[in-house]
């Protein structure tokens, strides 16, 4: 199925400045005709371009709140990162009660599902050593897409579990159907998420054949709507049913902590994640049992849809943990029902970076890329619209650009057409191949 990315470009705002192309960890953006374009096959929805764009032209589109009206009964699934967004909040129930004032009829905390997944994992750890080590967390959809594209060898290392918000959605819909007697399709189940990648995952699941969510709202979009009802609650019903472990999932390291006793590595930020995956791929970290990888700084609290500084949000969530039990939810299923938490489809390799399926053709293309690259200035100026000279050479060979898109190549050619074969003289100093001795002139 084609990806339905949530990261989109607002072309009226884009000035084609090329700021975004270098920040993209998968080199998925090119500037064409003064506008950025995203190569959909390569985008992993990490949100890096959204953070970088000085003109706020790249956005991620969560669903609009008015889709709630399409359903008779709506359930909110707040991710724990939401809890860290509010100043001076000492009670999670205030947020959960306020959600009932803005159009939702029921709340099911994603942190609750996270605690169940952690319990499921602890049972698996007790049951015996895993088939492969280290196990890699399956909780960040951006990381899953990254592994599918660049680290196919590591796919068997990825944990078998679905996202906490997906488990929450399945359980919440069941509960709501039982409570209301409504058919499941008339119940809307919506996650409130910290990042673009989870909006995409709500539409096209990485691990499930059929999506289990009806939509996902950005924390940023819900935040302002919550502020007023949070202030004016007449009474606060006790609703939250999570402990320290569930809240911990909001930041990188929390999922690891809930595994107890294992040797875990928690890594945040896409460049760090890539470096770690490289090491695992080469077997250079044999002592690790589990890898928790988050695309965003500090984990979900650093998502591009959050309002607060990730470090501040993490501190607040720590504050909210005070006085809570360690965990308040067990994985409640036995026998075949346990499969509810597992993926029902395999993670497939996405060979987006492969030059050609045929090795001979790929070698030929690589040769041409190297040949062309050796004749490029190596400045990575971005004027051609590609993030680096190497990416540009690849684009030319793969037919996504022509050599004339490089201003230095054009300049060279114009000089030689004008009969001046020493084009070098006319290039700006940083790009001359020969350094002139100017000291004696």
């Amino acid at each position, binding site marked *: 199925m084609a990806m339905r990315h949530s990261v989109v470009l607002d072309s009226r705002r884009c000035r084609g400045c090329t700021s975004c192309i270098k920040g993209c960890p998968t080199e998925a953006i090119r500037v064409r005709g003064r506008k950025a374009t995203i190569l959909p096959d390569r985008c992993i929805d990490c949100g890096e371009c959204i953070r970088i764009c000085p003109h706020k032209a790249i956005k991620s589109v969560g669903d609009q709140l008015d889709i709630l009206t399409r359903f008779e009964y709506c359930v909110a699934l707040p991710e724990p990162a939401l809890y860290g967004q509010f100043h001076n909040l000492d009670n999670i129930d205030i947020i959960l009660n306020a959600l009932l004032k803005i159009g939702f009829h029921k709340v099911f905390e994603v942190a609750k599902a996270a605690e169940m997944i952690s319990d499921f994992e602890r049972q698996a750890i007790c049951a015996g050593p895993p088939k492969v080590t280290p196990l890699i967390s399956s909780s960040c959809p951006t990381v899953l897409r990254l592994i599918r594209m660049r680290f196919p060898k590591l796919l068997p290392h990825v944990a078998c579990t679905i996202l906490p918000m997906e488990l929450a959605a399945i359980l919440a819909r069941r509960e709501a159907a039982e409570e209301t007697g409504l058919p499941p399709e008339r119940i809307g189940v919506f996650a409130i998420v910290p990042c673009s990648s989870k909006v995409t995952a709500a539409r096209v699941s990485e691990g499930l054949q059929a999506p289990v969510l009806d939509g996902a709202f950005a924390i940023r979009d819900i935040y302002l709507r919550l502020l007023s009802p949070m202030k004016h609650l007449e009474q606060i019903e006790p609703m939250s049913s999570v402990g320290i472990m569930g809240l911990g999932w909001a930041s990188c390291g929390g999922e690891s902590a809930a595994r107890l006793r294992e040797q875990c590595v928690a890594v945040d930020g896409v460049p760090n994640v890539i470096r770690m995956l490289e090491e695992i791929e080469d077997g250079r970290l044999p002592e690790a049992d589990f890898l928790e990888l988050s695309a965003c700084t500090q984990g979900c609290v650093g998502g591009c849809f959050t309002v607060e500084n990730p470090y501040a949000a993490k501190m607040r969530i720590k504050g909210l943990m005070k006085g809570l039990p360690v965990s308040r939810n067990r994985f409640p299923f036995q026998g075949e029902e346990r499969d509810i938490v597992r993926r029902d489809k395999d993670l497939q390799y996405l060979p987006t970076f*492969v030059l050609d399926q045929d090795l001979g053709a790929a070698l030929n293309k690589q040769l041409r890329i190297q040949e062309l690259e050796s004749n490029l200035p190596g400045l990575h100026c971005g004027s051609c619209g590609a993030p680096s000279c190497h990416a540009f050479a690849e684009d030319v060979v793969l037919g996504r650009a022509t050599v004339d898109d490089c201003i230095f190549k054009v300049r060279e050619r114009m000089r030689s057409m004008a009969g001046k074969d020493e084009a070098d003289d006319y290039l700006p100093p940083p790009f001359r191949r020969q350094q002139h001795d100017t000291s004696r002139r």
Partner: protein
Amino acid sequence: METIKLVYPVEGGDLIEAGEASSKMKLTLKKLGLPQDVIRRASICMYEGEINMVIHADGGEAQVEVDSDQITIRMMDSGPGIPNVDQAMQEGFSTADSTARELGFGAGMGLPNMKRYSDEMTIDTVVGTGTTVTVKIKIPQ
């Protein structure tokens, strides 16, 4: 037949940076769509070779050739050379200094690992002049 040549300088004295050439090579091999196992074995050989050159020879150069039959990695240095190759090939034998050992290197597994993960390995060494370790990894057709 198309043959790609890749050349990576390996800086001496910097154990922390060692592994960069292997990472870069790996990225190119992935783009060629080579089998995962071949890529893995090639990067292990390259990584071990890089570490060796950094520890013993103050760096050198890694040359990689890829055609549709095999990957050939040549690790060339102008270091002290290996006086006793048989001894150097024994697992656990190492002449790495204490600095390298403190960093967790020098376990005497470098050359044995290169042998284990490659299909062919040759060592050309002249004491006082330098060493070239060549490994070949076949690509299953």
